[in-house]
């Protein structure tokens, strides 16, 4: 299951999507909205995605995991829209025969998600400024808060 959603992510959906009788471990990862970036207070985040391509790229990551670890039960969900502090933005579930491979594959899934899945984060700071974030720097600064 690879999905972009506007709904609250509880984790139940990805957990159920990877249920498998040959699994001895399920690794579940949640990314959550932190209240600051490098000490600067965050008010909330907005995520935007290109849903059909994002879901296709998530499925490709699962194929990579299948090739590397022989793990065939991977699910990923990412939420879009306005997310408040503490809310879940992304959930990854990996079911594997043994936990070591599951942890590694889950880490890999998140790393790849941040490289190839078309999803964007707009950080709205507590002081009202906003910017589109890019991986190692700010992509576009000093935009107004949108209403």
């Amino acid at each position, binding site marked *: 299951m690879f999905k972009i959603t506007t709904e609250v992510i509880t984790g139940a959906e990805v957990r159920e999507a990877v249920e498998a009788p040959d699994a001895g471990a399920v690794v579940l990862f949640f990314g959550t909205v932190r209240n600051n970036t490098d000490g600067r207070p965050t008010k909330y985040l907005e995520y935007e995605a290109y849903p059909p391509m994002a879901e296709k790229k998530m499925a490709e990551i699962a194929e990579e995991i299948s090739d590397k670890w022989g793990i065939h039960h991977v699910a990923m969900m990412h939420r879009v829209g306005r997310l408040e502090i503490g809310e879940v933005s*992304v959930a990854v579930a990996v079911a594997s025969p043994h936990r070591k491979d599951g942890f590694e594959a889950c880490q890999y899934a998140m790393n790849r998600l941040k490289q190839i899945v*078309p999803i964007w984060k707009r950080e709205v700071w507590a002081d009202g400024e906003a910017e589109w974030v890019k991986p190692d720097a700010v992509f576009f600064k000093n935009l107004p808060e949108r209403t």
Partner: protein
Amino acid sequence: MKVTVKYFAVCHEMLDRSEEEMELPEGATVQTILKRLEEEWPEIAEFYEVMQMSVNWEYATENTELTEGDEVALIPPVTGGCDV
């Protein structure tokens, strides 16, 4: 030929639209679209270096040739998930 061009994140915000249809000459490539956008928003060229393009949900290059009905998108640096 007609193609659909989609804009996300900073492109969406700066161009003030999320998609449009573009009429392009036969033999047009992704580059043809980039040049056209540059006329409207010159500063966008500064970001081409870090931006990627997609055609029909697959990453493409500026030399990728387009055909009728293609869905092209400008893909700014992706930042999904969280910073861990």
